[in-house]
């Protein structure tokens, strides 16, 4: 056994095999991000008549390991918009620092009222993401931006690591696009129905969708953040617990694991 300090804390080759050098090369050509490392799962959002509700759980996974269980993935901007990040957590933190700088310089220019609204912010971020993908050095995130647009109407849009953008009455990233989006679309199939939805209804729908995500998404957590944005600002709760969970259905699921019947 090698007890030299260089060997401390390293996995033994005879047990784990040789280290795969493609992951960490100390010298050699610069390599850009090829895959996300610590990741956050779905973010979901829905528009209602006076604003937007958005939610994401507080988990940061390292592969299949639930690595950090208290990571806030919703970020308010200038108390007038909200951002939800899924994907790489370190890229999220980079963007967070970047946005802090942006909001400071904006506040310096115009201290009285925020001027970069959600629509402006979304355009800025999508340009940023698109520029990075064009340099083959992507920021590995898929994000939702919620708030109000130039006309004071509710605004909800997505931007991803390729710079793709789209907007809809309800949106979800990652697994949420498969699991939560169909539920939300039942309530808001189009803009007209989003205009009729009340705040309470929207929050209930999002909570319901978060529950389904926790049931079915293996990389999810039952502690989550939920934000409501209206013209009065952002109300962000970062320590919500999923309520009324019922695992009764689990009994009826067959064909997995150690089940024998």
């Amino acid at each position, binding site marked *: 056994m090698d007890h030299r300090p260089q060997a401390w804390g390293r996995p033994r080759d005879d047990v784990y095999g040789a280290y795969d050098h493609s992951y960490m090369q100390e010298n050699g050509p610069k390599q850009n991000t090829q895959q996300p490392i610590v990741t956050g799962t779905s973010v979901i959002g829905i528009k209602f008549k006076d604003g937007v509700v958005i939610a994401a759980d507080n988990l940061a996974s390292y592969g299949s390991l639930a690595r950090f269980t208290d990571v806030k993935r919703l970020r308010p901007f200038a108390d007038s918009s909200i951002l939800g990040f899924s994907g790489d957590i370190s890229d999220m933190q980079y963007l967070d620092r970047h946005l802090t700088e942006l909001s400071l310089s904006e506040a310096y220019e*115009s201290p009285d009222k925020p001027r970069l609204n959600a629509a402006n912010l979304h355009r*800025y971020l999508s340009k940023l993401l698109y520029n990075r993908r064009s340099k083959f050095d992507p920021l590995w995130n898929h994000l939702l931006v919620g708030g109000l647009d130039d006309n004071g109407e509710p605004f909800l849009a997505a931007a991803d690591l390729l710079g793709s953008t789209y907007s809809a009455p309800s949106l979800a990233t990652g697994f949420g696009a498969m699991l939560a989006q169909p539920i939300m679309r039942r309530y808001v199939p189009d803009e007209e129905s989003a205009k009729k939805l009340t705040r309470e209804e929207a929050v209930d729908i999002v909570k319901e969708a978060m529950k389904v995500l926790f049931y079915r998404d293996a990389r999810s957590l039952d502690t989550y953040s939920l934000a409501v944005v209206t013209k009065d600002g952002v109300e962000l709760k970062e320590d919500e617990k999923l309520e009324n969970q019922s695992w009764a259905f689990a009994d009826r699921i067959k064909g997995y694991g150690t089940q024998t019947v």
Partner: protein
Amino acid sequence: MFRNNYDNDSVTFSPQGRIFQIEYAGEAVKQGSVVVGIASKTHVGLFAVKRNAEELSSYQKKLFEIDEHTAIAIAGLTSDARVLSNFMKQQCLGHRLTYGRPMPIHTLVGQIGEKAQINTQVYGKRPYGVGLLVAGVDENGPHLFEFQPSGMTEEMVAFAIGARSQMARTYLERNIESFADCSKEELVKHGLRALKESLVQDKELTVENTSVGLVGLKEGPNGRPSVEPFKLYDGFETKEWIESVSESQGGEGEGEGEGEGETAAAGDGDGMEVDS
């Protein structure tokens, strides 16, 4: 003979704490023909007298659109103004592209201010020989800014720069209370009257030599204010306005013979190619 040793470059202070080259650049502004700007609660107007270097030549433009929500009026070296205007156009396009919104006027003016200041602190550079009035609207409403070759910028309610502009400023000061609630039409009348104050004795406002530019806010589709894009009025579009002020002017009866100020500025097309 007395010789000023402190005006050989634009970066050296005189013992009195002055930088002469910057002051000389300020003189270039005073040789350009007069431009006036007035802001109300809803609109900003820019007004200019255009000069022709000689009878046979055309009139030199004074008002330039920068983006749909902002425009400038220039007094001084036209070629320097073109550099600044191209820069401002690019910045506005870039801002729209990255943020999807019109450039805030304060930010835009800050950028040219910074650009001009560099010329006063780096050896071998020359200050811009042009002054600007920057008019525009943004989410905080209409704005009017003054820009000087020193890099100085300041927000104004109403202002005039260029030859004999002191007369126009005096007129504006006398009427400052009324500007805020002016309609578009009233704004134009004030602007043209201010211009007239600054004209040399036997010169008149004509459809050939007068430019009017307006930008403002209008009622949007859902009651929110939206931008009424900058519009430049030249030639016959200004006819009725000019006629309307020539009548009322007679009524007010203000024909004091303004003596001073004529000396340096009055001459059309002297020496340097100054604005117009």
